[in-house]
């Protein structure tokens, strides 16, 4: 651009290309720290994992990771993974936890939000109390739930109240019940977050639209389904997405509570990776698992986000 035309442009428009350039530059500098952090945590680990996933490297071999090429095995880790039933079982278990916990947390959170959107005596107190589980460090929650689910523990005491004979279920020693106990702990700890997000969403649904619906003769349910829920659509998606993502990574409470056991009954994908990393020590294989998960997640999330942002544009 010549000097002359620049001058002209300046005269013509208050927002010149100059200013726009400056804004782009500013935008770049502002996002730089985040970009650096992301690159920092992403680039090296991914390249390194890509490299060692092609090898049979284990720390037990006594050679540093950059010499892992000495144990080059090509794609064998990946083909092993395809037939690793424990991996698929862990993935499936994670999925089960997800499809059980997320809907329950959502429905409980939604139900509570419905209750808390109206005023009632003692609301403030109830509200604060409900949020407490979120504030409890997951590690200690793991220990407490371990105790709660002992066969002579409080959970069975509570159940005994509803039963004629004393209940003595050994929750954590039973392969199927242990998963239930683990899910109960997750639901306990994270329903409050769901509730909080949904409440925020519900409070923001315009009152007058709800009133308008009622005045047009809508029942509570019709108003909820046709006005409140559609208006909360985006926030519901966000709440579900957050919990789904977090449950995919479920580890702390679970690991302390059951260590993935009995056997592999509560072994989720994170616990599985942890065990393969720390006990089996076949790190080439771990790298292959990590990369496969990364690729799958990237594809799924890219797809989900593009769908979501398309939806947002329509709105």
């Amino acid at each position, binding site marked *: 651009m010549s000097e002359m035309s620049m001058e002209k442009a300046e005269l013509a428009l208050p927002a010149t290309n100059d200013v726009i350039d400056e804004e782009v530059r500013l935008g770049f500098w502002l*996002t730089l*720290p*985040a970009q650096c952090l992301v690159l920092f945590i992403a680039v090296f680990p991914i390249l*390194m994992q890509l490299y060692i996933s092609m090898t049979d490297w284990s720390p037990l071999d006594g050679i540093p990771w950059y010499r892992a090429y000495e144990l080059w095995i090509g794609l064998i880790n990946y083909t092993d993974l395809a037939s690793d039933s424990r991996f698929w079982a862990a993935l499936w278990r994670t999925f089960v936890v997800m499809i059980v916990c997320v809907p329950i947390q959502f429905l409980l959170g939604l139900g509570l939000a419905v209750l808390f959107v109206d005023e009632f005596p003692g609301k403030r107190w109830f509200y604060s109390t409900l949020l407490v589980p*979120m504030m409890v460090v997951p590690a200690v929650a793991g220990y407490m739930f371990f105790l709660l689910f*002992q066969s002579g523990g409080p959970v069975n005491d509570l159940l005994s109240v509803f039963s004629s004979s004393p209940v003595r279920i050994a929750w954590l020693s039973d392969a199927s019940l242990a998963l239930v106990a683990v899910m109960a702990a997750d639901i306990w700890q994270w329903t409050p977050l769901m509730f909080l997000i949904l409440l925020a969403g519900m409070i923001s649904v315009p009152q007058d639209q709800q009133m308008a619906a009622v005045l047009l003769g809508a029942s509570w349910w019709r108003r909820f389904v046709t006005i409140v829920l559609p208006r909360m659509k*985006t926030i519901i998606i966000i709440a579900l997405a957050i919990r789904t993502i977090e449950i995919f990574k479920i580890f702390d409470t679970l690991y*302390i509570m059951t260590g993935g056991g009995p056997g592999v009954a509560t072994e989720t994908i994170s616990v599985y990776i942890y065990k393969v*990393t720390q006990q089996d020590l076949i790190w080439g294989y771990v790298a292959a698992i990590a990369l496969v998960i990364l690729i799958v997640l990237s594809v799924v999330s890219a797809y989900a986000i593009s769908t979501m942002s398309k939806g947002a544009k329509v709105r």
Partner: protein
Amino acid sequence: MILLLLAISLVPTLWMLSMAFKPIAEWSASGAELTWWPKSPTLDNFRFIFGQSSSELIVSLERTAARPIMASLLAASFGTLIAMTAGTAAAYGLSRFGKGSNLPLALIQLRLFPPMAVMIPLMIMWAFLGLIDNWFGLAVVYGIVTLPFAFWLMKTFFDDMPREIEDAALVEGCSRLRVFTRITLPMMRPALASSALFVFILNWSDYLIALLLTTRDWVTIPVYMTSLSSSMTGQLYGAKAALGLIAAIPPVILGIAIQKHLVRGLTFGALKE
């Protein structure tokens, strides 16, 4: 209904509370008696984790809880600071000037990715940088791991905030930086507060990352907690519960401090009309 739910949700918390005040004889997981309330309440558990045990023989406690508490506070706070600073700057940058950057996507994927899966490279990198067992090293990881949350929460707020106010100030000759610090940030205070609380809770809760990246000097509360066991009585549940109770204090205080903003702060800007 609500009372029932509330009661259920309180059980584990009350259990922790009651555990924290139980004397040694009432802890045992495996003893036949798991009572709801301490029969003879005591503060021994709290004294114990701070190194003033009344019965010396339970276990030889080499480290008191004071340092892990400090480690947790430092790592979680600085992690929050890093995430909030980088996240807010990036959110502002993208919300105001961003065009087609793929940073948001990268950030979501970062959050999606289980930290477990980058454990090995992370340990190797951190050892190389001398950041193992170092609160700052931990804080950096926390900052990165929670950055996506900080970014997304803040971005929705910036998207929500009308540009006109800023533009007006710009026309009056204020610099961008001045506008940002004097006008934008103060308006964002509720958003910053609730996002920071959220990020802080995530950092504060972490067990896995601290387990991998700390060994002695800077173990955090959850890692320290797992070491509270003894051959005399098994797991020191009372001490764990007491520590858990102490660990709940910072998030609760922060939560109360920003209670007003909490709900508003979590709408993720999803409700624009």
